[in-house]
């Protein structure tokens, strides 16, 4: 995984301030929509915008701590791992490399990260 993840794969997608704290914005990609989350402590995560349960758009969920609650049926997804709280390990939301540099959000959608 690390071999694929080169610096050149990162693309500037937004300013950090475009994403509200405890909120998310989306990026359209070849892998489908990717949701970029910004937590209350300014951590940033990128996950596919689809709940493993019924495909709900988790970008619309309420962000709390380092988790998000899917708006459809209240599944809680851990942003750091993509795992659904209390669900089987298989129910993981794919994650993408994302980082913040000088107030800009850099996203790499060349390939999802390996499951945590």
């Amino acid at each position, binding site marked *: 995984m690390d071999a694929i993840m080169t610096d050149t794969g990162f*693309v500037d*997608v*937004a300013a950090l301030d*475009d*994403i*509200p*704290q*405890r*909120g998310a*914005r*989306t*990026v*359209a*990609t*070849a892998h489908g*929509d990717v949701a*970029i989350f910004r937590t*209350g*402590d300014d951590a940033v995560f990128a996950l596919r915008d689809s709940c493993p349960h*019924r*495909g*709900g*758009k988790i970008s*619309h*969920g*309420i*962000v*709390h*701590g380092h988790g998000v*609650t899917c*708006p*459809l049926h*209240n599944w*809680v997804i851990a942003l750091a791992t993509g795992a659904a709280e209390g669900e089987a390990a298989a129910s993981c939301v794919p994650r993408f490399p994302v980082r913040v540099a000088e107030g800009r959000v850099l*996203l790499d*959608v060349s390939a999802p990260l390996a499951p945590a």
Partner: protein
Amino acid sequence: MHGTTLSRPRLVVVGNGMAGMRTVEEILAIAPGIFDITVFGAEPHPNYDRIMLSPLLAGEKRFEDIVLNDYDWYASNGIRLIAGEHVDWIDRARRIVRGAAGTEAPYDLLLLATGSSPFVLPIPGAELDGVQTFRSVADVGDMLATARSGAKAVVIGGGLLGLEAAHGLDLRGAEVTVIHLMPTLMERQLDASAAHLLKQNLEARGMTILTGTETAAFIGDDRVRAVRLKDGREIPTDLVVMAVGIRPNAGLARATGLECNRGVIVDDFLRTSDPAIFAIGECVEHDGKVFGLVAPIWEMARVAARAMTGTPGIGFTPAASVTRLKVSGVEMASAGAFLGDSGTEDIVLRDGARGTYRRLVLRENRIVGLVAIGDASDAAWHFQLLKDGTDIGEIRDSVIFGPLADGAADPDEAVLALPDGAEICGCNGVCKGTITRAIKAFGLASVDDVRARTKASSSCGSCTGQVEALLRAALGREYAPATVKPVCKCTGLDHGEVRRRIVGGKLKSIPAVMQALEWKTPDGCHVCRPALNFYLLCAWPGEYVDDAQSRFVNERMHANIQKDGTFSVVPRMWGGVTNARELRAIADVVDKFDIPEVKITGGQRIDMLGVKREDLPTVWRDLNAAGLVSGHAYGKALRTVKTCVGSEWCRFGTQNSTRMGIALEKMSWGSWHPHKVKMAVSGCPRNCAEASIKDFGVIATEAGWDLLVGGNGGIRLRGTDLLCKVTTEAEVLEYCAAFLQLYREEAHYLERTAPWIERVGLDYVKQAVVEDEDNRKALAARFLHAQTFAQADPWAMESAAAAGAKFTHVAELT
């Protein structure tokens, strides 16, 4: 008496103070009636609590309040009390005690409990009027004769007793200066940091504290008028109180040839060098030590009582003890080697804002000393660790914070230790005694009972835990606390408590609530955040800034999310009435945005389903242009007001139900609620608008309007209850506004009116809205006030704002 003295051994007690009487009590408990008891007391009083002289001086207590054993106690235990007669001679050969007034009492066993005397500084002027000590009720009387408001008082001695005297004089309004020889106050109990905080605290109350200062003389002709210090300064004063220490009263024992050093020397069983004579309390010296605090003296009383009654038991060893004091209202504790040395380490916790300090002194991971000031609530636990020699290696990181993390603390203890005069409820100024008396007098059994009777805990609620502790203490197992159903796992509080504290604590933001109510998570969860957002919005209309990130997606997007991620859009149709212009605008929007489905809703509106997220702002703009606004079909808000055609068209109609419905909707649109709210108005009892399954239903009659509440056509069908009957449209509006506001202010978030009414009872709602006219008008006024902020069309606001990335992707990388 002559006959019985032969059959029972005679016990004579010299000293009617705390140590002597405690021993007598212990004896009576072990072997009641075994002795014929006579007690001599120098003071003309029954035994009183010397520790309470300070509150007596401060006027917080009366003498009756500090009596430990009243005259009846002596009488009922057959004890002969000779109060006010000083014992000046013991004839050990004949075993007779003689008082100053000539009273003689023969003994078989003698107990000396003569206590101690305050040390008087041997400096010039010590004999002047107005120079005195602080040791007895008589001393308090002398001080009160001088220490009226505005008088100047100097206390010599910054130890426990001196500061107690200073505190009492301060409360009496005197201008107090404390002079202390040592560099820090209470150096026998406190380290320098703790002493510094104490000094600050006393100075903040207006006392002057001079440490490292020595007194040279008292100046005056008959009466003291100033204190002269070693450095030549003079401090004008009306009163000098010396509290520089005590020394054992061993003079009587010494005069009769008992072995004495500083005090009367006793063995481990409190026996003096004469086997028929025991001694106890501050007059004794045991193993080279003298005593001044109560804890070891109580232990002495136990040991002496066993020895005197011939009960087997182990001897006296002064156990390590923790000194817990409240000096001048400042809580403090100290124990063990609290100063530490080169072989010890310290853990220190300070809270500058609260003025608290605690320090644990460790040797090889064991607590060997502790000192705390400002908050001594965990001292008992720390002391237990000290006494047990517990290895605290594993909890070293958290041990300073106390046992709370282990759930081992007893929070009740702190409350129960408070005096009756201590204020429990700061909002309503209710003190502990008022609550405990009310619990007893009125048989109160719940926090709600206490709130209703005393007002305690009825405002901000932060004292609820303390009130519960008092109920537990009063009722024991009878007390069944209301089962609390916490809002969510982020808090232990239930919805009602959270709402009460938001209002009472004037908490006006989500972070403020989470801080004040000690939320367990950094920013809540999907359960509590929307609830808090609503509670704050309801409590502080116009002030609270709505937090979009704490709203469910539908309310954040002002549209209903569908299972495929698209949205449905429902414009408001007032009372279910529309026209060609609105219908044409809807048709145009459907065509323009290729909206896949259009449906008539049960609430007499039109639903456009399958609208793409990015189209929402333009759809709204087009609908707004035709005068259509948000129908709030997506919100915990006022939804529809369904109507029938009413008297305008229907042959059965008795009133203009459509006009009534529109008026209701115009008044209440835009209002946020704990859950969705649906209304309906029917023009006759045939009820075509199905008003009897709505949250607020109105049915017209010949005489006026029936107002119905609490209906629900959902999973659990519930017909409405009749709230009342009214006659005018204005009344319908007022009652509706009041009802909605009561629901807004008191229901739990996500609780529909039906379960809310079942929970609180229809009678309660009737009382609040129908019977109490003033309350109804106040509720309605609050609703209408909130509406002045709420009635703004969110669609217009969102579509006018720069179309943010809320509705689009921030980037496209396809």
